[in-house]
């Protein structure tokens, strides 16, 4: 039961202290130019990795708005530097935490700090490396885009913000960069801003995220006032001493942030629309990194978790996973399919996190989370690899097919774009959990957790896996097999090296990325102590899980492979339109609901208030009062009749009043 060992979880929490000295399996850091390592301390590396993309973004924004090419090179260079430093930090293995006070009022202070532990190391590698590959890919993909500078500038801002989240050592700092990734995602979705759909999608994404952040910020503030700190290390240190004030509300509120960012139900609506952005953006932000930030954040604050909150989280994740996979079946747009699969995979991760605790629900709260964190982060990593791979693959396809995105207008691309085909196929195999591929291991870990803890969840997740295999194979078959169903597809061509090389690298990672148990495995090198938290099934459980996942994969994939004909229209729609429509509505319902709310409820309410404001407040009361005074004024003016007698009467009146005063009438 190694994965349940206190050490595992303890080391996770105690990770500010170097968990590994020096550089094991030293071979890896031989190719790293050791000058870097000696030149700067690791802290300076960390600061550099944060600032390099910011610098590139600033330079681009200020000077390179018109030099698109130059801007792209600067940005890619920055991303390369990030990746390099990430690897240096990872291999150097030092773990540290520093912070500097940024704002203080009385005894309340907000500080920015860097917490570089195993969790951060893993995430930083994923972000840096995948990000770098995607940058390179974009060089080709966005080559003839007019607003290249803006695009790459946006990418750099995103890298900066994302790395900020990864390195943050307290909740306020996470929130700051949380907002910033939201902004950069808005910027990049809005890249084709002349398209109304893009403008709307970006707006939707930002606002929906704000809704999530509403809870997030409340949670942070509540956590601050309950524990008088929001620093992860301090919180973690309070926990064993029993000083930590637990409240179900805090984790739930914080989870709201994750719901928004990781597009869980009911805030999942923005992610599919976000596909309006350029494909590399979808790959980087809306598949690999940003949407995973929610899970990362949950792992960060795991000490605050309590059982009820975890329960909610688990169910949210499960339902999202299942719902999204259903929605994915009927999509025609290749990116939409991938988007929904992303949703459901994120649901997997969230569910994994939520499952983690329940494994240990015996009062031993401190240990509870470990397995969940392990599984979630594991899946996050592998998913980052293969989903980025598939998005880039789809990007390459779209690029080849002259920006045709409808899978029913593709087909027969296997010969035209062989590299894309192979790499994409690897991605598909990885996501549907073909043994030996990355997805297989991570998904198994999660399924095992589920089986251990909650059969219903287990069933749902397994079913999700079936459907996942089903629609992925559907896409794969319709896209690459058969004959070209449109002249765009028939004239498709393989993309250049700039785009294929990243595909290949990601494909390799999608294969080896999940080998955590072998001594030569890659994941432990990346994740360090996190890797040791992954729940590992033994004996019978191991067998069942293995069988289940194999069965799941074969059933789903086989069904899709047999069922779908490579024709111009959806076979399911022909066979059973009822089911098709049902699934379609399943997807539509949420958008409809939200649109109805925005257009009919919210806007009408605003109009009503505006009407009241204008008519009632501004006009009736104020104007009314003014008019009344005006009338009185006219009346007062009318007293000056010009007749002497009237005036004499006034004098008489005045004298009489004075006389009355003298006679003491008024007192």
């Amino acid at each position, binding site marked *: 039961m190694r994965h349940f060992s206190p050490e595992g979880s303890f080391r996770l929490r105690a990770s500010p202290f170097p968990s590994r000295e020096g550089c094991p399996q030293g071979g890896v850091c031989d190719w790293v130019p050791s000058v870097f390592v000696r030149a700067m301390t690791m802290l300076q590396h960390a600061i550099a990795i944060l600032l390099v993309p910011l610098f590139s973004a600033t330079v681009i924004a200020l000077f390179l708005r018109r030099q698109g090419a130059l801007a792209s090179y600067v940005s890619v260079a920055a991303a390369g530097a990030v990746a390099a430093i990430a690897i240096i930090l990872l291999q150097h293995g030092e773990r540290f935490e520093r912070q500097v006070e940024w704002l203080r009022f009385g005894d309340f202070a907000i500080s920015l700090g860097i917490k570089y532990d195993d969790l951060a190391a893993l995430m930083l590698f994923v972000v840096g490396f995948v990000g770098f590959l995607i940058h390179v890919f974009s060089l080709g993909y966005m080559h003839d885009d007019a607003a290249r500078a803006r695009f790459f500038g946006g990418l750099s801002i995103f890298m900066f913000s994302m790395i900020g989240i990864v390195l943050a050592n307290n909740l306020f700092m996470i929130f700051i960069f949380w907002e910033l990734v939201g902004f950069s995602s808005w910027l990049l979705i809005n890249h084709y801003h002349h398209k109304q759909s893009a403008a709307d999608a970006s707006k939707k994404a930002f606002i929906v995220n704000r809704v999530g952040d509403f809870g997030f910020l409340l949670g942070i503030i509540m956590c601050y006032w309950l524990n008088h700190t929001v620093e992860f290390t301090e919180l973690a240190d309070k926990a064993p001493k029993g000083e930590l004030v637990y409240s179900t509300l805090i984790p739930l509120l914080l989870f709201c942030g994750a719901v928004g960012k990781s597009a869980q139900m009911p805030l999942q609506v923005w992610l599919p629309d976000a596909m309006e952005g350029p494909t590399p953006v979808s790959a980087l932000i809306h598949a690999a990194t940003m949407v995973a930030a929610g899970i990362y954040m949950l792992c960060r604050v795991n000490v605050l978790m309590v059982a009820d909150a975890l329960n909610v989280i688990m169910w949210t994740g499960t339902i999202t996973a299942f719902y999204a996979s259903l929605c994915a079946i009927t999509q025609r747009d290749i990116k939409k399919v991938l988007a929904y699969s992303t949703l459901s995979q994120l649901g997997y991760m969230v569910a994994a996190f939520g499952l983690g605790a329940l494994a240990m629900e015996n009062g031993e709260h401190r240990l509870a989370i470990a397995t969940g964190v392990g599984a979630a982060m594991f899946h996050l990593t592998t998913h980052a690899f293969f989903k980025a791979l598939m998005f880039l693959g789809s990007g390459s396809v779209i690029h080849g097919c002259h920006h045709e995105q409808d899978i029913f207008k593709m087909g027969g691309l296997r010969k035209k774009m062989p590299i894309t085909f192979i790499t994409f196929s690897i991605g598909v195999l990885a996501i549907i959990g073909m043994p030996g591929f990355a997805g297989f291991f991570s998904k198994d870990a999660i399924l095992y957790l589920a089986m251990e803890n909650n059969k219903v969840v287990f069933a749902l997740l397994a079913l999700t896996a079936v459907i996942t295999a089903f629609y992925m194979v559907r896409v794969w078959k319709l896209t690459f097999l058969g004959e070209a169903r449109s002249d765009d597809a028939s004239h498709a061509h393989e993309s250049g090296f700039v785009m294929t090389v990243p595909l290949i690298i990601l494909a390799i990672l999608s294969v080896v990325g999940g080998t955590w148990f072998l001594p030569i495995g890659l994941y432990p090198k990346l994740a360090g102590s996190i890797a040791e938290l992954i729940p590992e099934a033994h004996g019978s459980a191991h067998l069942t899980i293995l069988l289940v996942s194999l069965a799941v994969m074969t059933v789903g994939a086989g069904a899709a492979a047999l069922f779908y004909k490579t024709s111009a229209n959806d076979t399911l729609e022909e066979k059973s339109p009822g089911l098709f429509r049902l699934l379609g509505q399943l997807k539509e319902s949420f958008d409809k609901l939200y649109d109805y709310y925005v257009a009919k409820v919210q806007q009408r309410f605003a109009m009503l208030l505006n009407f009241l404001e204008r008519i009632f407040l501004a006009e009736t009361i104020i104007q009314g009062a003014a008019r009344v005074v005006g009338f009185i004024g006219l009346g007062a*003016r009318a007293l*000056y*009749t*010009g*007749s*002497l*007698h009237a005036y*004499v*009467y006034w004098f008489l009146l005045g004298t009489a009043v004075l006389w009355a005063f003298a006679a003491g009438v008024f007192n």
Partner: protein
Amino acid sequence: MIPLLAAATYGLPSYLLLSAVLFAIGFFGVLLRKNTLVIYMCLELMLLASTLALVAFSRFNGTLDGSVFVFFVLTIAAAEVAVGLAIIVALFRQRHTIQVEELNHLKH
């Protein structure tokens, strides 16, 4: 010369009352009459009413100042009359009327 008042029992109050009545009558005239000249007479009447009280007080308080003040009041009244009548005459030249109700062009 024997003070006539030595024998009188109608004292200061009656004089004060009388002057008040005259004052009121004058005021009433100013209210009532429409002929500017008559209004002006009534105003003079009011002044004289005050004068009467003044003399009475002066007499009964045994201070001469009141009576001296009467000289000033009379002179001032005369001067006012002169100016007033001049204005009225000039007005009549312009408007050919001295009826108050027709002199209400300045209003509002």
